C-alpha cells in the first residue's frame, strides 16, 4: 500500500499479541497465594485433629467419617442452592435488561433486595415452618438469600456493555439474540462471574445456618460446640467453614481469570 499508511503504527508492542493481559502475571500471583493459605490451614487442622486428645463426644463429631459427612452435606447444600441461583439469577437478569421487561426491573430488584436484607436466620426458620424442616427448605432459604448478587451483576454487566457495540451488531445484521449471545454476554462475563463468586462465598457461610432447620452441614459442629461448651467443636466448625469459603472463592477467581474474554 502507500507509504503513508505505516506511520500511524501500533501503540502496543507485539508482546501483547495473544491477549495475555499486561496485568496477567500479578493476577496469577494473587491466585497462587490463596490456595497456599488454604492448604496450610487444612494441614494445620489435620495436624491438630490427629494429635489432640479428644473426648468421646468430640470424637463422635470430629471423627474422619463424621467430618467427611458434614463437609459433603455442606457442599451439597451450597451446590444445590448455587445451581438454582444461577438458573434463576442469570436468565432473570437477562430478561430484565430486554425491551419491555426493563420496566419490571425495579420491582424484581426490590424483591431480591428484601430476600437479602432479611436476617438469614429468620428467613431459614420462616421458610422451615412453611415448607417443613430439612434439606429442601434450607436450599430454598439459601436461594432467596443469595440470588441478588447474581441477578444484580448480570443486569449491571449487561447494562455496562456499550450501546454503540449493540448498535454495531444490529447494524451489521445480527439478530437480537445473536447480539446477546455473541456480544453482550461475553462482554458481561467478568461482572456476572464476580456476582457468582460473591453468591458462592455467601452460600458457604450461610449454609452453616441450615443446621437450625435440620439441613445438616458444618453448622452442626458449631451449634453442638456452643450447646455443649466444647470449644474444640466450635472452632473446628468455624475454621472448616472459613477454609471452605476461601477455597470456593479461589476456585471462583480461577474461573473468572480463565473465562475472562481475551482482548478485554
Amino acid at each position, binding site marked *: 500500500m502507500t507509504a503513508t499508511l*505505516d506511520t500511524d503504527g501500533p501503540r502496543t508492542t507485539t508482546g501483547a499479541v495473544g491477549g495475555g493481559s499486561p496485568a496477567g502475571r500479578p493476577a496469577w500471583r494473587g491466585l497462587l497465594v490463596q490456595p497456599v493459605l488454604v492448604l496450610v490451614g487444612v494441614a494445620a487442622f489435620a495436624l491438630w485433629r490427629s494429635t489432640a486428645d479428644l473426648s468421646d463426644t468430640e470424637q463422635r463429631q470430629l471423627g474422619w467419617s463424621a467430618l467427611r459427612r458434614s463437609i459433603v452435606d455442606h457442599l451439597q447444600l451450597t451446590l444445590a442452592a448455587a445451581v438454582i441461583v444461577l438458573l434463576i439469577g442469570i436468565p432473570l437478569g437477562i430478561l430484565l435488561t430486554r425491551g419491555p421487561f426493563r420496566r419490571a426491573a425495579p420491582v424484581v430488584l426490590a424483591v431480591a433486595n428484601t430476600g437479602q436484607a432479611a436476617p438469614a436466620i429468620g428467613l431459614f426458620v420462616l421458610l422451615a415452618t412453611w415448607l417443613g424442616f430439612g434439606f429442601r427448605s434450607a436450599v430454598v432459604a439459601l436461594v432467596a438469600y443469595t440470588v441478588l448478587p447474581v441477578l444484580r451483576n448480570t443486569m449491571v454487566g449487561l447494562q455496562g456493555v456499550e450501546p454503540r457495540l449493540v448498535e454495531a451488531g444490529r447494524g451489521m445484521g445480527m439478530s437480537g439474540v445473536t447480539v446477546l449471545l455473541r456480544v453482550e454476554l461475553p462482554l458481561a462475563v467478568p461482572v456476572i462471574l464476580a456476582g457468582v463468586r460473591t453468591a458462592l462465598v455467601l452460600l458457604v457461610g450461610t449454609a452453616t445456618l441450615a443446621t437450625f432447620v435440620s439441613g445438616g452441614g458444618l453448622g452442626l459442629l458449631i451449634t453442638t460446640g456452643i450447646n455443649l461448651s466444647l470449644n474444640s467443636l466450635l472452632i473446628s466448625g468455624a475454621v472448616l467453614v472459613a477454609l471452605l469459603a476461601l477455597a470456593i472463592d479461589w476456585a471462583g477467581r480461577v474461573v473468572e481469570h480463565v473465562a475472562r474474554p481475551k482482548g478485554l
Partner: protein
Amino acid sequence: MSETTAERTGATASERRSTDREVSGVSIRLEGVTKRYPGQSTAAVDAVDLEIPAGEMVMFVGPSGCGKTTLLKMLNRLVEPTDGKIFLGDDDVTGQDPDQLRRRIGYVIQAGGLFPHMTVATNIGLVPGMLKWDKARISARVDELLDLVGLDPEVYRGRYPRELSGGQQQRVGVARALAADPPVLLMDEPFGAVDPVTRQRLQDELIRIQGELGKTIVFVTHDIDEAVKLGDRIVVFDVGARVVQYDTPEAVLAEPAEDYVADFVGAGATLKQLTLTRVGDVTLQSPLVARAGEDAADVVRRATAAGEQYVVVTDRRGRPISWPTLAELSRASTVPDTVDDKLPVVGLRSTLNDALDAMLAASQGGVVVTGRDGVAGVMVVETVMAAIQQTRGQVEG
C-alpha cells in the same frame, strides 16, 4: 466572480469524479421518508425526498439534532420510518426483513465499533459468517480487506482491537463494513474520534478505496471541511432533516442556496477551495532521494551537485522515513535508518489544505508527497502559493 470560480472548479471536480471509477454500488431513493417520535409535536425527519446516484459518496451535513443521523439510520432501518419509502436500486426495502437487509449494507460508526473480545479477523469475518460463507473463503476475504485498508494481514489479523491505535481500529471498522461486498456503505461520523493527522490520512484512504470500489456511500459529518473534501455531493440539512441544498461541494461553497448554508459553510469559503485541489493536481518538485544505509558522503556530494539543501531518506521499500538537511547527513558515515515520527507526509490525493497544514507544522517548511510507488515529490509553501496565484489568474482571466 463566484460564477467563474464555480465554472472552473466545476471542471476539476467533474474530472475528479469521472476517473473511470468502477461502480459497484446501487442508487438509493427516498420518497417522503418521515420519522415521528411519540409525544413530539414536530417530526424528527419530515417527508424527505432524496436520490443518491449509484457509486457516489454523498455527505450529510447539518447542525446536531437536525435529523441527519436519524435519516441515515432509517436507510438500514435501525430506526424504522414512520412513513415513506426507501429504495435500494429498484427494491423497496421498507418491507424487507431488517436483519437480511443490514447484511447487504455496510455500517461504519465512530471509532469503528469493533467488538473488543474478538480478534480483527473475527470482527471482519462476522457478516460473511452470517451469510454462511465457508471458512477458507472468509479468511481469504479478511486478508484481502486488511490489505485494502492498508494493514498487513500477517501482523494484524490475530490482534485484538485494544492492541490497535484509533486510526487502525477505524480502518478495521471500514474493512468489516466492506466484508460481504455490500453495494451501499453507511458511515456515521466515522472519523470523529481520531486526531486531525490520522483523520486526514483516513480520509485520503477512503477516497482511494472509494476510487477502487465505487460503492454508494452515505457519510454523516458535522465537519464541512470533511464534507467538501470527501463528497461527490453534499446535502445540507436544517432541522427536521429539511434538505436545504443538495449539490456538488464546489456549488455549495460558491453558491450557497440560502443564508443558512452560507452561515453553516462559514467564513473563508474561498480558502476552503484549497480543499478542492488535490496535491496530485499541482507540479511537484523532485527531491534527491537516498536509501538508508547508503554512503553518506556520496549522497552529500550528489546533493551539493544538484543544489539541494535536504535529502529525502527512504527505507528498503521506498517509503520515506526522514528528511534531514545536508549538515545533519554529513555527520553520519552512512545514511541513518531512523524513522522521523514528525516527518510531514501527504498522499497525492490529499488536498492542498492538508498539505499546507502539514508543512506549516514541519521544520523543513515543506511536505514529502507519496504515491503508489514511494516518493512522488516534495511540495513547499511556494508551490501552494503558486497554485493559488494560478487559480486567481484563471478566475480573473
